[in-house]
């Protein structure tokens, strides 16, 4: 005879970890294309180089840990880290910067904790913060958006050259402060004046930035539609960010924190909301917990952006809330069928 002896359920749904990760990678494409359209090929070079190094580090770590390399590389989780870091870094970032970032993210933040599923911090964001603190100059050199300067956008060959350190001096010609930075430094002009005097600004927020954010919003909506994650964390983060910017808009005075549209479509807001905050491994697990988790991230983003030292704050906020996720989980256990109270009964 010899039938299989396995326990139920015998049927399995179509979803696998690899397919989840592939969908996430796919959903980053609209935002990535918008970045490329407005800031040149730097982002694509970033992502490619980050992918190569991340996979190499992942394979190395798996080999040291004596794990089946092929089996784990196939889950695409290292690629997701690489994509997110590559997108977050300034276009055409130096190759060593990217490599240090992926190395730190994969080796220290992920594999040292036990690999996929065991990391308490989002590897891409932890790497980003480490780089931002260690290499502030390289990390704040952003391209000027298309149409805000006379020269050509960064082509693929130039991006590759700059990335690997050839003629990198020329890059200064096409860099510019980001809109978030401009707003932060402003203490004299009304918002409307600032808008008309700075070439970085577009319709709602920064030129290019608004489209990149729209792209990530589109990708995120697709992922929610495919039920890869729930709407709770991203929506609550965006809602709180909107609320805070409304409260402190101050009628567009020189002390204004910026309009809600500006905050929603600037910097890494949408990337953070749909690709970082939703990172399942490091976020809260229940829907109620995710609402709290997202809301607190939104609050922190606004606080750091407007009153802190750094122009953008998604990475810091996410890391801080990664700390808090287990506590949120503890207090947000859902009410189980047939029980009167939520959480543990004493």
């Amino acid at each position, binding site marked *: 005879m010899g039938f*299989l002896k396995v326990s139920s359920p015998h049927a399995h749904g179509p979803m696998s970890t690899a397919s989840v990760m592939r969908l996430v990678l796919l959903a980053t494409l609209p935002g990535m294309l918008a970045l490329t359209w407005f800031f040149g090929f730097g982002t694509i070079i970033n992502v490619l180089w980050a992918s190569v190094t991340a996979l190499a580090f992942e394979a190395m770590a798996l080999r040291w840990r004596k794990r089946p390399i092929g089996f784990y590389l196939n889950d695409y989780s290292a690629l997701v880290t690489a994509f997110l870091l590559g997108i977050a870094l300034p276009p055409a970032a130096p190759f060593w910067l990217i490599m240090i970032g992926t190395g730190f993210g994969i080796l220290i933040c992920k594999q040292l904790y036990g690999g996929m599923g065991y990391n308490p911090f989002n590897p891409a964001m932890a790497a980003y913060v480490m780089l931002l603190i260690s290499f502030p100059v390289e990390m704040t050199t952003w391209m000027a958006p298309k149409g805000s300067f006379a020269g050509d956008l960064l082509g693929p060959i130039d991006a590759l050259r700059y990335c690997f350190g050839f003629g990198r001096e020329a890059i200064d010609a096409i860099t510019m402060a980001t809109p978030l930075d401009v707003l932060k430094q402003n203490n004299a002009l009304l918002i409307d004046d600032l808008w008309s005097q700075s070439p970085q600004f577009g319709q709602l927020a920064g030129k290019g930035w608004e489209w990149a954010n729209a792209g990530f919003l589109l990708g995120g909506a697709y992922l929610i539609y495919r039920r890869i994650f729930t709407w709770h964390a991203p929506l609550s983060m965006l809602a709180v960010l909107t609320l805070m910017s409304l409260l402190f808009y101050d009628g567009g005075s020189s002390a204004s924190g910026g309009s809600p549209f500006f905050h929603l479509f600037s910097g890494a807001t949408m990337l953070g909301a749909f690709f970082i905050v939703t990172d399942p491994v490091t*976020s809260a697990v229940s829907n109620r917990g995710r609402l709290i988790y997202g809301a607190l991230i939104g609050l922190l983003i606004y606080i750091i952006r407007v009153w802190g030292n750094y122009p953008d704050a998604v990475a810091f906020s996410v890391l801080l809330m990664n700390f808090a996720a287990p506590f949120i989980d503890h207090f947000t*256990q859902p009410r189980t069928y*047939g029980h009167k109270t939520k959480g543990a009964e004493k």
Partner: protein
Amino acid sequence: MRKVWDIHGGIHPAENKQQSLQSPIQAAGIPPQLILPLAQHIGAPASPIISVGDRVLKGQMIAEAKGFVSAPVHAPSSGTVVAIEPRLIPHPSGMSGNCIVIDTDGQDEWVKHSGVEDFRSLSKIDLIDRIRQAGIAGMGGAGFPSAVKLSTRDDKPIETLILNGTECEPYITADDILMRERAAEIIAGAEILRHLIRPSKETLIGVEDNKPEGIAALQKAAEGTGIEIVPFPTKYPSGGEKQLIQILTGKEVPAGGLPADTGIVCQNIGTATAIYRAVCFGEPLISRITTITGEACSQPRNYEVLLGTPVQFLLDQSGFNKDNCIRLVMGGPMMGYTLQDTAVPIVKTSNCVLAPSVAELPPPPPAQACIRCGMCAEVCPVSLLPQQMYWFSRAQEHEKLEEHKLFDCIECGACSYVCPSNIPLVQYYRASKAEIRQAQQDKIKAERSKERFEARTARLEQEEAEKEAKRAARLKAAKDKAAAAASNPDSGKADLIQAAIERSKAKKADAADPAHDAIARAQAKREGKVEEESPAAKTERLQLLIASAERRLTSAREKLALAKEQGGENVEAFATAVIKTEDKLTALQKEIAEHQASLTTAPSKNEEADPAQAAIARAMAKRAGNSTDESDEDKTQRLQNLVATTEKRLAAAQQKLSMAQEQNDANVPAFATGVEKTQNKLDAVKRELAEHLAALSAKPSSASEAPANSDDPVQAAIERAKAARSAQANMSDEDKLKQSIASLENRIARTQEKLQAAQASGDDKAEILADSIAKLEDKLASAKQQLG
């Protein structure tokens, strides 16, 4: 449209129901052999009421319900009982269970049976009894005896009667086809249930909306009855009792409670038809509808199957292709369990046999790491956090698991179904539930043995303290005596009396004074503080009293002799004392004789009630050296000991005598008497020993093998076990295990011999013996495992 509620979570797996709905229900026919497990329901297994070799008729009860939560078993067809023995039964563990095996004769001859014309004329008790006698147990899958579920209490009035026609598991269509073809029977059964339960509000039949034909058929049959058919959106696992109740009424069954607590009773529609057949035709539950499906069967369909029909018999009719099937599932793909063998029978709860092809349900891929995606929590129908429970389960954090309501998990499998990392979550929960239950039992056990140990320690300490006190008293008395003798060898009676007074004072001061003890005991008894003295303790106490009385008598006599010799004025007083002491001694001896007489009769009475207690009492009596039924070995040992101590005493007495003679002591005559007495006693004991040894050599075989009371095998076994245990106490763990393995093997061999004998003579003990062999073998296996 009636309002329906939604349950949390849920999934939509591929339904795969059409395959088996292409053809109508077909009778599967009578297989050559029917195998009927005694436990086809939740609760105590039924107990056989026929013997091997009996001819049974279709519908005849062959095993009766054993206890309240139990159900009888009936012969599904006529034939001959060929065996009552353990056979493979449908069970997740692939284990065997006791079954009645019937070789069918093909005549399908019914036993005399009759139904009632009008069930409304029957009382509730009569109706429930008919359902109980028909052996009906929940046919939706759980197999809970229906009569128990329907015995609602008057203090919990029922508002809603729900019939479950949900059948949310993929592939299974047994209920669907029942609705399509026998809707009238379902409604008739529902009417009986309604009459029985008398729901104050409504009677509902819940059906998922993926069964439009079934819903239509039911609605047609239910016209004018007031029974409402409630279709609701298809979603797995809506068919769980608690889930269906939530969907139809919006109420939740409280955790740890029953549906009746919320005024609801829920029954499967298959059960309803079985109740109809039982009440209106007198037909017990002997067949059911079972779906045979899966891509490995070329003709999937529903069969009306006699209970006990081997799965193989059904697969043969369905074009089963073994080569394309690596797993065989009893039940559906979500909650069914795998079968290891196609010889297992269809039972009351078997709604489906799923024989999928390899491509259809491939072997599970290796599990990956949990990425905490939370999809499991999204689909959990009872709002658990499956991934948190998974981590706690892996870390064996039982407390956390219970905080996360592990025991509310219904094991529906939705979490495992959606898990992108292919983690067998439900399996983790099952294992953890078992671990927690085991730990709870171990805890209770540990607490009990701790209590036992503490009681034993206290007892031993007390015994030791008593001995120590006695020893100290004796030592002091001896010193006093020696001091008195040395300081004044020719002292008169005044000194002797002084010494006696001191001795008595010393004794009184002694906490272990038997008089004090006796008073304290008597008081305690009067106040009801202590339990009745055990026979063994009584024997011991009496013996102690006798010993002390004897000592007092000897010393009184000595004193009397001394006083006479010296012509003292106290002669009369001493004489009275001697007489009194003699009286007391006689009284005590009488009492002990009576007590022992009662002991020898009492055990036979007690044995039936509690053989262990009797054995313990005997053992204690034996320790006191006064058992009437002590073993030969024990007796030899005791006599030898006695000889040795008497010899010692004789030597000591002789020494004292010679010393007294040398010193020309006044006590010489007394010492001489002592020597003479001891000599006599020694002779008597030696004689007894010689006699005993002679008797022993006359029956050498019984001396070492069987104890004296070999006429009672139970006692003998208890004694052997006790001896083994005391021997074990001094062994290393490994030796213990080895020994217990050896003894288990021994016992298995013996039991097998008995079993063969019982089987040869057709004794009905055979089953019990077979059972105990199985248990012994289990023990043996675990002992061997422990040994490594």
